[in-house]
């Protein structure tokens, strides 16, 4: 019987062995030459976590600065607090969601209008109506303000013109006079990220080159220099990102002239061209426009109401189908024509030259999102078994507005920032798990 007892003891030993798991030694936390005890994020809508055409709680919670902040905490970084909407007002400004696909496979979207954080509207003299949101008065690490340009950071009344900024300021609507630059630098910090400058080009581009103007190159350079010198005034370290090429985003690459033409030709095979009202030259100061057939180099905005095509509109030559004749071209605001594309690209390249030069002069890390997103557009990106691309909806990176990112897209961006920080300062902030962040939600 003793033998059986031995067997029993052996079996018990075996089972306890079986409880062992392989172990990994995680590297010792190392912040390198940087100090992450108070990290602040400076930027616009991309920094705020804007997605699907709005700012709402889930987007904020998955903003790239919050992901970076969370990863920094794994090596001893400080708390990272965001101006979040409350659960009761979790849909913030409202946003669009996907409700299905039509027979052509085109997406159908709907506005989310419940649980909003809209406080009201104020009329600012000389400017117009501004939507205001429920105020946030707590601590702030993420200073992302949707809509802000680099051009706006020293403009004292800006807090009255932008509801997302007004929300963070203590004063009543219309009474604010704190510049964005003063606001973000008021409380001491040890590390910053800055991704301002997108809207200085994007505002022009998304309005088809008519609703806004590009920020002057020299103005951009002087403001950027001022911004970075203020952010590094106490020798803080930080990371800045370059401005993506506007043609790398689905907002301009989804509704193409060829797609419109092909759709028209299904019912009217004789139609040979789609006409647009296009800039006649690539001189930014010259505003001559003329109708001409669209080519693959002309970009149509995602929000173009394609149902307008072919509807009869009044012209000097009588009632003519919209978009199909030189007398009834697709209007300027829907088209970033090839000359406007060239102008935008030229400005973005100039801005990026400035960003890299200023960062280099201060020894600041650079996350080159311009190059990164152009590479994705050309080659795609495979992460953790997921194929990502710049395509609308299916690409997984861009949200339903075609400009801002999905949580998964923001996680990819956060990892690019982390890699740039680790490379520059010798720190070992662990990368985020991209697979755990979602892409577009499907009904």
């Amino acid at each position, binding site marked *: 019987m003793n*033998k059986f007892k031995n*067997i029993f003891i*052996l*079996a018990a030993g*075996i*089972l306890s*062995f*079986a409880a*062992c*798991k*392989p*172990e*990994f030694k*995680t*590297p010792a936390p190392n912040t390198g030459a940087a100090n992450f005890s108070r990290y602040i994020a400076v930027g616009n809508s991309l920094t705020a976590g804007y997605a699907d055409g709005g700012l709402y709680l889930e987007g904020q919670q998955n903003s790239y600065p919050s992901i970076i902040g969370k990863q920094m905490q*794994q090596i001893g970084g400080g708390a990272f607090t965001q101006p979040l909407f409350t659960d009761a007002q979790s849909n913030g400004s409202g946003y669009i969601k*996907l409700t*299905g*696909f039509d027979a*052509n*496979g*085109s*997406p159908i979207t709907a506005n989310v209008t419940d649980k909003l954080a809209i406080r009201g509207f104020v009329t600012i003299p000389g400017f117009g109506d501004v939507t205001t949101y429920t105020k946030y008065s707590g601590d702030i690490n993420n200073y992302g303000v949707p809509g802000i340009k680099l051009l706006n950071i020293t403009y004292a009344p800006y807090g009255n013109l932008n509801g997302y900024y007004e929300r963070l300021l203590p004063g009543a609507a219309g009474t604010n006079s704190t510049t964005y630059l003063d606001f973000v630098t008021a409380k001491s910090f040890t590390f910053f990220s800055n991704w301002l400058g997108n809207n200085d080009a994007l505002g022009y581009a998304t309005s088809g080159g008519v609703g806004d103007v590009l920020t002057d190159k020299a103005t951009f350079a002087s403001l950027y220099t001022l911004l970075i010198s203020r952010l590094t005034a106490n020798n803080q370290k930080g990371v800045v990102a370059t401005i993506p090429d506007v043609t790398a985003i689905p907002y301009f690459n*989804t*509704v193409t002239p060829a*797609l*419109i033409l092909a*759709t028209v030709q299904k019912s009217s095979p004789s139609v040979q061209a789609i006409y647009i009202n296009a800039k006649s030259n690539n001189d930014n100061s010259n505003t001559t426009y003329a109708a001409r057939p669209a080519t693959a180099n002309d970009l149509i905005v*995602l929000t173009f109401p*394609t*149902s307008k095509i072919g509807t009869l509109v009044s012209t000097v030559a009588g009632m003519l189908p919209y978009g199909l004749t030189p007398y009834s071209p697709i209007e300027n605001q829907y088209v970033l024509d090839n000359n406007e594309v060239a102008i935008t690209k030229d400005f973005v390249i100039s801005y990026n030259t400035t960003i890299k030069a200023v960062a280099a002069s201060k020894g600041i890390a650079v996350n080159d999102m311009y190059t990164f997103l152009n590479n994705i557009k050309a080659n795609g990106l*495979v*992460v*953790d*078994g*997921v*194929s*990502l691309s710049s*395509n*609308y*909806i*299916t690409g*997984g990176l861009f949200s339903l507005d075609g400009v801002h990112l999905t949580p998964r897209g923001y996680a990819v961006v956060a990892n690019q920032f982390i890699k740039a920080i680790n490379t520059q300062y010798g720190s070992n902030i*662990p*990368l*985020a*798990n*991209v*697979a*755990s962040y*979602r*892409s*577009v*939600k*499907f*009904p």
Partner: protein
Amino acid sequence: MRKLLLLMIAFLPVIACAQGFQVNLAGQKQIGMGHTGTGLLQDGASIYFNPGAMAMLPENYIQAGMSPLFFKSAFNPSGTNDVYHNADKLATPFSGYAVFGPKSSWWKLGLGVYTPFGGLTNWGNSWEGKYVLESLDLKAIYFQPTLSIKLADFISIGGGFVYNRASVNLTRAIPLADATGADGQAQLTGNGKGYGWNAGVFIKTEAGITIGIDYRSKVNTTINSGNAIFKVPASVQANFPQPNTFTSGIPLPSTTTLGFGFYPSKQWTLALDANLVGWHVYKALAFDYASNTSTLQDTYSPRLYRDAFSVRGGAEYKAADKFAIRAGGGYASAAAPDGYVTPEVPDANRYYLTGGLGYKIANRLDVDISFEFEHLFSRTQTNIESQLAGTFRSDVYIPGLSLSYHW
């Protein structure tokens, strides 16, 4: 107008199966001695190790054993402090053999049922590689009727026909989030079959050394009409037609073994085996879906495995008439080349240590227990196809028990 084809939604080819996952658990006496046995006359497990030795067995056998396998694997994605553990799932490789022939005859007949290949991994649905694999349960059961003939007192040969019954159940997440943000899921389940053979020769030399040579052929296993179940949000379900089936083929590789037995004294048996496993047949894993769409294409996933070898040694000491102690160990090389390591088989070079006890409960009844510890060397890889990058570490703990009746 914003026409959208859900083109190629990140649907990487589904992976596969057994490598590194050759399951060498075919008999408790042999496990105890480091998986040696091709050059020995131990028991009915010769049907697996060397059918050529069967006719030399002094007795007839009916035996069965089981080796519950605890596979402990963990993954640390590159550049992170995250560690994901494979869930505890118990695989149950087993073996059963029956050998019969008239006393002192020149022939014996046998039937073996064993599980030479398989894999059971479950990484769960929230780990970093979930879009590559959530879980895999692969089983291959070989049925092998066998005939062995003694040509002379010093040499015997034998061979058997192999019928393989395989089953697979594989799940992975699909990167299409529903309204709550939850992933879709693909599940592929099916049964397949394949055929092969196993033949060997056994020689007793005048020097008292025994030699065995065995060749187990490759078994091309085909899964026809497996169920391909895709759970995705309703608005994109049309891209993943349901119901759907798939066809796939898995080549299970050949194994060539040379084994020696040495008998320094009446109490001691020493054994040495060398194996060559023809993994080069596993060039790719392809899935052919019955209904395709622009999103759901047939897949072809290169594997490019290379032949692997192992060397093994073992010893048995008969402490008393009724009692034997065994120990052994070995080393096996990885079949998956760099860039092709996948979470369903985190293949790596490995060593193993084994031990065992044999006890004669009754005159004709043996009980054998075995224990194996297998350590896979840590392997840091970026998979070329999925770009999943990180370090795998795996350990395997395998207790086992068998009963043999012999007469």
